[in-house]
């Protein structure tokens, strides 16, 4: 080897005499270095082989390495042949709280069309009104790949005397070209918070905005299909469209052919450096309502019923920004999220006196109805140690324009800006358990300042949940 090196060096020198150029010399040096390195490697490899051969030929296997120490061929662990090997991933969310707040007979948001409760069982107190100790519905999740082309998931909400199918959908795995198809009952992709179930919320309750938009359930779900497309770019660009039954508030079930609701959304997102990531979105939902019922007050303060028939369209803009040192959220991280909505409803409103209390609607008049309302929330949650997080949320709605036509003189048409400020702190023993204390000052009802305390627990059992962005 030394000989070869010397020869190469002499050759280089001879060359150098003719064209003594610095770059040439450098190139030759590099070549020599390369040769030297490759020979050294080959010799080392040969030495290794020799050593191995010697070890193998050495009589009756001298001290074979312990089985678990050798990085040998994969060991297929007890081949699962039983049918239960194909059981879907199962997880269960156990969630409940202690709540202390004012007793309000008909809790709602002043200036907004009452979105109908989500009471489990007849005569029960609506979840949103429950004071003291209570259990939220228990969520049972089943999910699995169906075959190479499809995946399916069902989320059941269990409550006393009731099982509610919250979501039950299938999703494509193999369409390609960035396309994703989902069908069945699902939470719509509009907004940021809409796809999240209550156990994933950063506060014990949904923002007022979601309650005003979709009712106390605070998620817009529907039966239908969703098609999404992800652009082949380094910047995250995703667009999606949905056609659905549109049976839920702000629409009503109209039992017709075709689509009762249309939704569309677009998301962009990415990273800024390694510590920051963000996503922004714009969504649109259009649906129709037929005789959607809500409780109103007439000019004399008596209860009246209103039936809305017409079109409801909603725009939502959302933004999420996350920070973690070095992009590692384990120790510390911060999350900011904010959403803004605008809703327009046009159609007719009929006013009734169903319970014959003698209100101003005895003649059951119908008139043109037109509203334009908006609202927003913004929240920040800071995880300051692996176990502790603290968060603040502020929100405000604007009852905006409410034109009730001729009925405007019969009903009390409130103009109000509901407000709510919330602070929370939660402790996490692990990824799977959380205890949260929350205080909120709720001014969503005119003339009422409700100071609400909530102590909440969320426990997740079974299959590992997904870390959604």
């Amino acid at each position, binding site marked *: 080897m030394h000989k070869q090196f010397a020869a190469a060096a002499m050759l280089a020198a001879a060359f150098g005499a003719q064209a003594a150029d610095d770059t040439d010399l450098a190139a030759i040096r590099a070549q020599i270095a390369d040769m030297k390195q490759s020979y050294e490697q080959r010799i080392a490899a040969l030495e290794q082989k020799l050593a191995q051969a010697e070890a193998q030929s050495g009589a009756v296997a001298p001290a074979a390495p312990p089985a678990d120490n*050798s990085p040998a061929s994969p060991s297929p662990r007890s081949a699962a042949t039983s049918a239960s090997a194909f059981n879907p991933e199962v997880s269960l969310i156990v969630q409940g709280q202690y709540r202390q707040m004012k007793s309000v007979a008909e809790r709602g948001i002043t200036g907004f069309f009452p979105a109908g409760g989500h009471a489990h069982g007849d005569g029960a107190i609506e979840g949103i009104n429950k004071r003291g100790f209570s259990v939220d519905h228990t969520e049972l999740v089943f999910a699995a790949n169906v075959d190479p082309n499809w995946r399916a998931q069902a989320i059941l909400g269990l409550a006393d005397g009731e099982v509610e199918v919250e979501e039950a959908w299938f999703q494509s795995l193999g369409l390609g070209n960035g396309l994703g198809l989902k069908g069945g009952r699902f939470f719509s992709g509009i907004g940021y918070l809409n796809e999240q179930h209550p156990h994933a919320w950063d506060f014990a309750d949904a923002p007022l905005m979601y309650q005003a938009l979709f009712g106390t359930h605070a998620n817009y779900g529907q039966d239908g299909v969703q098609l999404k497309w*992800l652009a082949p770019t380094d910047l995250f660009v995703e667009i999606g469209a949905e056609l659905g039954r549109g049976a839920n508030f702000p629409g009503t079930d109209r039992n017709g052919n075709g689509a009762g609701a249309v939704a569309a959304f677009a998301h962009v997102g*990415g990273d800024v450096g390694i510590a920051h990531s963000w996503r922004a979105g714009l969504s649109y939902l259009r649906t129709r309502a037929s005789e959607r019922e809500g409780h109103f007050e007439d000019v004399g303060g008596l209860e009246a019923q209103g039936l809305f028939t017409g079109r409801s369209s909603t725009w939502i803009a959302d933004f999420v920004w996350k920070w973690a040192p070095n992009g*590692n959220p384990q120790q510390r991280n911060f999350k900011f999220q904010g959403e803004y909505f605008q809703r327009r409803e046009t159609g007719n409103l009929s006013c009734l006196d169903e319970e014959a209390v003698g209100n101003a609607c005895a003649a059951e008049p119908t008139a043109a109805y037109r509203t334009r309302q908006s609202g927003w929330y913004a929240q920040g949650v800071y995880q300051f140690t692996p176990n502790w997080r603290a968060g603040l949320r502020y929100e405000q709605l604007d009852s905006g324009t409410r034109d009730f036509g001729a009925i405007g003189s019969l009903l009390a048409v409130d103009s109000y800006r509901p407000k709510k400020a919330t602070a929370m702190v939660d402790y996490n023993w692990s990824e799977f358990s959380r205890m949260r204390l929350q205080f909120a000052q709720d001014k969503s009802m005119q003339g009422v300042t409700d100071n609400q305390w909530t102590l909440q627990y969320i426990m997740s059992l079974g299959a590992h949940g997904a870390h959604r962005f």
Partner: protein
Amino acid sequence: MKKFIFGAFLALTVAFAHADLKVFATVPEWGALAKEIGGDKVRVYTATNAFQDPHRIEAKPSLLAQARQANLLVAVGADLEVGWLPLVLRDSGNPAIQAGRPGYFEAASVVNRLDVPTSVDRAHGDVHPAGNPHIHLDPRNVLKVGEALAKRMAELDAPNAATYQAGFTAFAGKWQAAMGRWEKTAAPLKGVPVVVHHQSFVYLTRWLGMSEVAALEPKPGIEPTSSQLNALLARQQTTPPRMILRTAYQPEGPSQWLAGKSGIPAVLLPYTVGGTPEAGDLVGLFDDTLNRLLKGLR
């Protein structure tokens, strides 16, 4: 002029040929290995860096955008990425990299995994039913994974198959030589008792014959409290360990606290490529790891 056009055309094809295979690696070590094998035939995107806990990543928009474009996904597997990778795969709209397809490669599936639990219960913390997923710190595993990965890359990008084979052969030669060197220099580490922050180094300590006497985390994935550390300190009085090991992404607090109380040196190991300035590639990773271990021994 003709020559110029030809030249321009050649330059263009060369430019495109630079990314024949788009690799999405979930962790830096396998990203680095794909680069060693593929050279300029691959474009490697690494989803995490050495300062990020691969357990705790979220399905960020940037990850979805990259997964959408990948031909080959190189994951660790053994549930290390269970919190985010399935979500990224499903929402990527990319059938080529779904689990079970040739474009999905799981490193942990080609090696023997240690610490496979006989019973699985979250009362034992964030346990991995498929065994300890931190497989790359045994260099023999790196070689195994490299061989399987090169085969997979050749299968997916047949025109460059020879390049990938040659890339792996060159890497294997270099690696075996380095392994001989490491095993020699690491001889003093044999039998040395150590405390670890999390079970991140099982394969390393097994390879080097070191003995792991305790972990700072009371259960995998659960950060220790001061009373738990105190109890640990008391238990270690009789046979004191020689070092307290942690990765670049784990908090220094607990190991520094224990080091301060006991006088046992706390040693930061790069854990993966990029964890320290010296661990710039796979060889550097092991060079620096051994260097720091030997330094800690003194």
